[in-house]
Structure formats: structure tokens, C-alpha cells
């Protein structure tokens, strides 16, 4: 028997509303298949299953709001026959979505989870409570079935701390999504600013070569295949991160855990306010054309509110690009548990000294906000220098480059 539980779709989520099942009992499902639509405070997310099997029973009905970790459905593993009464006592296999710190599972990788908490405490709330030294089992829960939520833990911490910030009122089911999203962003960003010792670096990068190359390439292509400069930046960031793995991964359980793959969270502003930062997977391994397709698709789906659970839960680093709005540089707030955020400002012509003369050349200001617990300014500077060099050789960005060094190789 396989247990399908509500996954956490980001550090700021501790409950979700099941909107729709895409499967019914008796349906065969494949690993990676979207089986349900779940509403978080940020977006409706297509939730994937991480195991092949046959749906046995759906335990949560559309419209129900449940904490992360709630058993949503049970499935029969391939070859398993419907439970005979005696099999009931057999230990259940727990299937969790891949933990964000793991590489994308190459094959089925059911991680063992602790049994459902005795006292309804969402996993995000329990983790946060552990960090703050609060016993979550003693808190009054305001979530579904009086479960203790992240907001409850934060509120308890605020009561203890001398902070003057108002504690969040209990969530009302009818609350407007905009308000909910603002709260979710506030919770994640407050935690980031409170816990992460950020340092910030910036570097102005000449873009004449990259843009000339891009223009030439785009000229030969139909409009539907044209690349945006953002795609070059994404790929260059992914490749530069391979050389500075201290910036790619997660700070968890008191230490930095590097990630093997580079899944870049792309900050996408939503038209009615707020933002999401879903992941583009394995950016370093993709061609520019593939990245452009994936980026266009991701932006479209983010704005239409149809993201996948794997995209929400596993970015290893985030990029924010505010250049289109005309700012010169953006110094971001790291999205925990990630340890770095790369920002790009406006791509514009500026006076630039080249070969001893001042010329008008396109440049872009790239910034790095990074977690001092995982890296130092020196490594951050190497990253930006690498990024600058990569963008001077745009043709080199177009080849898939699977020869990534192991991230463990260069941890200090």
C-alpha cells in the first residue's frame, strides 16, 4: 500500500485545499503524473505522484482544507492486490515527494517519513518551532481541525520576542487570495531577514558580445523561436553555480547542504499582485532553445495558476529580473531554505570604457545576495566573475554541458 500525502509546496506552506482529483479509484497512475489540484495561498498547484500504482481510495474530498502531510489517498503498488483483511497490519510504505535537497529522483525514491504527528502540527510549523526552541505540541492551533500552523508558531515566537509586530489574526477561510499571498510572502521573507546573514555583491557586466550573438541568432529564426536575453542569463548562472556550489542548495538542520542539480527558481510577478518563484529544472543541462521554451511555458502557467508540485518545492537558487521595469539593480531577499539569490537589473546602454576609450555599450548589473552561513564574499565574488566571463562567450552557453563537477568536491 502506498500512502499519498499532501506535500509541502514551499517553505511558507502549511496547509492546502484540495480542489479537484484527476484520478478515481481503480485508475493506474505513473510516477510524475498529475493526480490532484491543490490550492495554496499562492496558487493552484498540480500535484504529482512519485510512484507508479493503482488508486485504491481517495480520502480527502474536493473543497476540504487539510494540513501538509495529511493522507490524501492510498494506492496499490504495482503487482499488489487489494488489501486482504490480514494484510491490514502490514507496515505501510510511505511515499513522499522528493525532498528539495535531493537531486531529481532518477528512479523511484520513496523517502521514509516519520509517522503522522500525534498532535496535528504541520511539518513546516514543527520545523520552525524546532528552530525557535518552541514546543509546538503546547500551542493552540488555528488551522484546520485545530492544527498548529506556521502562523501559530510565528505568533508564539512574536509573543516571546520583544518584537512589536502585530500577530497574525487566525486565518479566515473567506480571506482574499491577495491577502493570503501577502501573508505567505511576509512569513517567508521575515524569516529570511531574521535568520539569514545576507551579504550583497554587485558587478556590472558588459553585454555587447552576448547581445550581438543573440541578435544574429534570432535574425535567422522565426519569431516563435527567438530567444530573450534572460535565457542567456539563466544558463550562465547555472554554469557559474557549478563552479561555486556553496551558492546552490539549502541551509537545513543547522548546516549547508549542497544540491547536485541546479533548479533555478524564477521570480515571476503575477498580474494581480504578488509573485511566485517556481523552478526551471536542470538549467545547466539544457540548450538555450529548450530553456526558452521551458521559461515561456513556466511564465504562462504561473500566470494562469497551473504550476506543478515539483516546480514549487525544489528550486535550489532563485533569479529575479527586474530589468524590464527599468531599475538599475536589485538586491534580493533569499528564499529560505535556499542560500542565494541572483538579481539582474536593466539591460541598457551606458558609458563604458573599452580599449581605453569611452563608448556607449549595453551593460547589465548582476547582483548576488548570499547566505554567510554557506559562503563568504570571496566565493560570491568568484561567482559573479565567472558569470561575467560566461556572458562574454555566448556561443559556449548553447551547448548542453553534462560534465558537471560533483558539488561535494569544493566544499571548504
Amino acid at each position, binding site marked *: 500500500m502506498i500512502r499519498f500525502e499532501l506535500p509541502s509546496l514551499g517553505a511558507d506552506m502549511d496547509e492546502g485545499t484540495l480542489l479537484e482529483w484527476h484520478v478515481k479509484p481503480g485508475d493506474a497512475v505513473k510516477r510524475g503524473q498529475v493526480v490532484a489540484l491543490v490550492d495554496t495561498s499562492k496558487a493552484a498547484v498540480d500535484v504529482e505522484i512519485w510512484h507508479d500504482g493503482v488508486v485504491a481510495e481517495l480520502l480527502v474530498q474536493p473543497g476540504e482544507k487539510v494540513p501538509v502531510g495529511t493522507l490524501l489517498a492510498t494506492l496499490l503498488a504495482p503487482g499488489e492486490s487489494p488489501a486482504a483483511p490480514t494484510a491490514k497490519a502490514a507496515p505501510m510504505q510511505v511515499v513522499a515527494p522528493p525532498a528539495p535537497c535531493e537531486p531529481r529522483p532518477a528512479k523511484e525514491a520513496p523517502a521514509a517519513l516519520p509517522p503522522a504527528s500525534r498532535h496535528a502540527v504541520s511539518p513546516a510549523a514543527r520545523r520552525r518551532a524546532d528552530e525557535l526552541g518552541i514546543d509546538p505540541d503546547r500551542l493552540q492551533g488555528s488551522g484546520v481541525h485545530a492544527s498548529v500552523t506556521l502562523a501559530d508558531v510565528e505568533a508564539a515566537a512574536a509573543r516571546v520576542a520583544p518584537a512589536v509586530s502585530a500577530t497574525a489574526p487566525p486565518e479566515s477561510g473567506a480571506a482574499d487570495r491577495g491577502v493570503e499571498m501577502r501573508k505567505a510572502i511576509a512569513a517567508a521573507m521575515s524569516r529570511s531577514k531574521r535568520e539569514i546573514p545576507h551579504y550583497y555583491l554587485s558587478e556590472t557586466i558588459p553585454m555587447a558580445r552576448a547581445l550581438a550573438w543573440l*541578435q544574429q541568432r*534570432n*535574425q535567422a529564426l*522565426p*519569431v*516563435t523561436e*527567438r530567444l*530573450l*536575453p*534572460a535565457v542567456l542569463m539563466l544558463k550562465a548562472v547555472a554554469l557559474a553555480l557549478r563552479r561555486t556550489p556553496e551558492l546552490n542548495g539549502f541551509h537545513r538542520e543547522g548546516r549547508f547542504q549542497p544540491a547536485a542539480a541546479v533548479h533555478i527558481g524564477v521570480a515571476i510577478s503575477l*498580474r*494581480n499582485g504578488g509573485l511566485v518563484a517556481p523552478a526551471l529544472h536542470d538549467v545547466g543541462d539544457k540548450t538555450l532553445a529548450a530553456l526558452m521554451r521551458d*521559461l*515561456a511555458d513556466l*511564465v504562462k502557467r504561473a500566470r494562469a495558476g497551473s504550476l506543478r508540485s515539483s516546480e514549487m518545492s525544489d528550486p535550489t537558487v532563485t533569479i529575479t529580473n527586474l530589468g*524590464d*521595469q527599468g531599475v538599475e539593480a536589485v538586491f534580493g531577499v533569499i528564499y529560505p531554505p535556499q542560500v542565494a539569490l541572483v538579481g539582474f537589473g536593466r539591460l541598457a546602454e551606458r558609458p563604458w570604457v573599452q580599449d581605453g576609450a569611452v563608448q556607449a555599450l549595453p551593460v547589465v548589473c548582476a547582483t548576488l545576495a548570499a547566505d554567510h552561513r554557506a559562503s563568504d564574499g570571496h566565493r560570491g565574488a568568484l561567482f559573479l566573475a565567472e558569470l561575467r566571463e560566461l556572458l562574454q562567450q555566448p556561443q559556449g552557453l548553447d551547448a548542453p554541458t553534462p560534465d558537471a563537477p560533483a558539488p561535494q568536491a569544493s566544499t571548504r
Partner: protein
Amino acid sequence: MSEDRRALADAVMALLCSIAPEVEPGTIDPARPLRRQVDLDSMNWLDLIVGLKQRFGVEIPESEYARLVSLNDLLDELQARLQPR
């Protein structure tokens, strides 16, 4: 405004509204910079160019983007490219 031009303007506006649903067609001043009036990022702009290609079969080269500031500029460009030479 000629009838052709008006039909073109309506089609472009419909496309723009599909990309930026918050736009109210009556509020756009065709002579002012479009991106001052509508929040369009580079991906939205590309969507618009791709939409024009699909709707009218017109390919606007990237090198022309910088000239296309207002809605009028865009309509001029489209009309010029749609006219048989």
C-alpha cells in the same frame, strides 16, 4: 482613422488584453509610449509579437523593436508590412 486602421487597432488591442487582462482598451492613449501604460515585460512583448505573427502573418524583426514605442508606431509598422509592395 480609416476603417482598416480601426479594425487593426481593435485586433491589436484584443491581443494586448489577452496578454495583460487588466488593460481597459478605452484608457490606452495610442500616441503615448505603450509600456508606460501597460505593464509589459520582455516576455509579454515577445508574446505580443508572436501573436501578431499568428494573427496577421507578419514577422516584425527584432531590430525594429526599439522604434515601436506607442500603439500608433505598432499600427504603422503593421500597416506597412501588410500592404502589398
